[in-house]
């Protein structure tokens, strides 16, 4: 028990130190959000997590996910139309579904898609809040039904708030930019990353998940922005370098 509490404290420290470290330098929003979903899964015992942000037309789009497999991101994207995430985004308040089996009348398509693929049983969506409005949402998926303890909900919301702060902070670093442009740039960078995953998956016979890990590992090991590496993989000849680099140490 004590050991578990101790290790969670260690994790928390590592997460916030890691995030704070990111926020002081010139960084990539997607890289920061990618770290954040990783920490969310570890800290809140979730099986998967993802972040969706609203574009200028207020449509939700996936920017970060702990699982880069196509079918999983499709499932996340489906939430742009229907599901706990879009409800959370519209209301600006957390939406918890302790058992999705009981939510099939509320979100028939979303629940059916979940049943078809991997059997997640509970979902918690936490808003990225800014001035009383939501700019996106953090989604936590669990394979087991049940509520998230209130301490975990509070921690999840703190992580979602860190995501918002990270987005605002990037704006402060690139002086004169406003939120709209940043989100648009971040969403376009996500498209670049998807294209780069395709290039690496093809050349290295990798899954999309493995391709993303290579991309991220290379960026971190070389202290480069994720979107810069992704662009060079698609446009120039960096793909071979990324594939030849030793897989990054697990972090």
């Amino acid at each position, binding site marked *: 028990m004590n050991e578990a509490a101790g290790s969670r404290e260690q994790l928390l420290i590592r997460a916030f130190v890691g995030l704070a470290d990111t926020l002081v330098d010139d960084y990539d929003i997607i890289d920061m959000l990618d770290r954040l979903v990783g920490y969310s899964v570890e800290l809140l015992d979730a099986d998967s997590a993802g972040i969706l942000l609203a*574009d*200028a*037309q*207020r*449509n939700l*789009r*996936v920017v970060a996910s702990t699982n880069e497999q*196509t079918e999983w*991101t*499709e499932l996340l*994207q489906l939430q742009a139309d229907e599901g706990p995430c879009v409800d959370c985004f*519209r209301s600006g308040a957390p939406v918890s579904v302790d058992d999705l089996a009981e939510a099939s009348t509320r979100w028939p398509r979303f629940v059916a898609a979940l049943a078809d693929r991997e059997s997640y049983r509970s979902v918690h969506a936490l808003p990225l809040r800014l001035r009383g409005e939501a700019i996106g949402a953090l989604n936590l998926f669990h394979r087991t039904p049940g509520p998230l303890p209130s301490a975990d909900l509070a921690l999840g919301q703190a992580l979602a708030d860190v995501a918002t702060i990270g987005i605002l902070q990037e704006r402060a670093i*690139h002086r*004169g*930019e*406003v939120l*709209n*442009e940043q989100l*648009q*740039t971040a969403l*376009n*960078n996500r*498209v*670049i990353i*998807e*294209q*780069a*995953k*395709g*290039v*690496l*998956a*093809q*050349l290295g016979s990798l899954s*999309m998940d493995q391709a993303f890990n290579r991309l991220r590992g290379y960026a971190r090991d070389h202290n480069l922005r994720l979107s810069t590496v992704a*662009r060079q993989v*698609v*446009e120039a000849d960096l*793909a071979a370098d990324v594939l030849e680099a030793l897989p990054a140490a697990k972090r």
Partner: protein
Amino acid sequence: MADPGRVTRVLQALSTDIPDDRALAERICLACTDGLDIDGAAISLMTASTMRETLFASDATASLLDELQFTLGEGPCIEAATSGRPVLVPDVDDVVETSRWPVYSNAVVEQTDVRAIFALPLQWGTINLGVLDMYRRAPGSLSRVQLGDAMSVADTAALMLLDLRTDPDQDRRDGNRPGAGARAENKPRDRSWGNRTEVHQATGMVVAQLGISASDAFARLRAHAFTEQRLLTHVARDVVGRHLHFTKET
């Protein structure tokens, strides 16, 4: 709920029989000068390479603003194109703001009465489709609502240009549309592929399969979907699932 903004709605309602990208650039620029608090707009191709030309400029000043950048090799549009970020200059007299392109800003102040410049990259992932360059004679930023509209216009315009340039339907592109033909109805084009993860990933895979640019790879995917009469997203899914592989011959 989702209000795309006034100018974006105008673009989304544009008819589908625009023959080429110059005509499309004209419609986009005029929609912007009509609906946004600006005095002129231009769309130019400004990639890092040598391919630089103006597709349309709403007036001589808008044209000069882009011409100066071609000549001097610096300026907000070139920065927008190479960085992939919007470059907003509420006041060209602000030295701090314009210190990244001093020669260009001097030329603008000397040769024009332009005070504010807003340069938005038109892009789809790594594919650079041009830069939308807007100017105003009075200094100041765009309002929050107008800026949101402008961002969404840039997104929509990029997809429209990409759609037009990679359209495999030659009949439609050449304007030889049969009067009562199946494709003749003037309904909005479906560009939902613009946000589909599998389309982005498949584009990357075809880049690697054929050693071609992302925009050529995307055109190949569309051409395949067109000749096979399948949805682009289904073709993309087959590529990602490794059921479909492009070779140089096919």
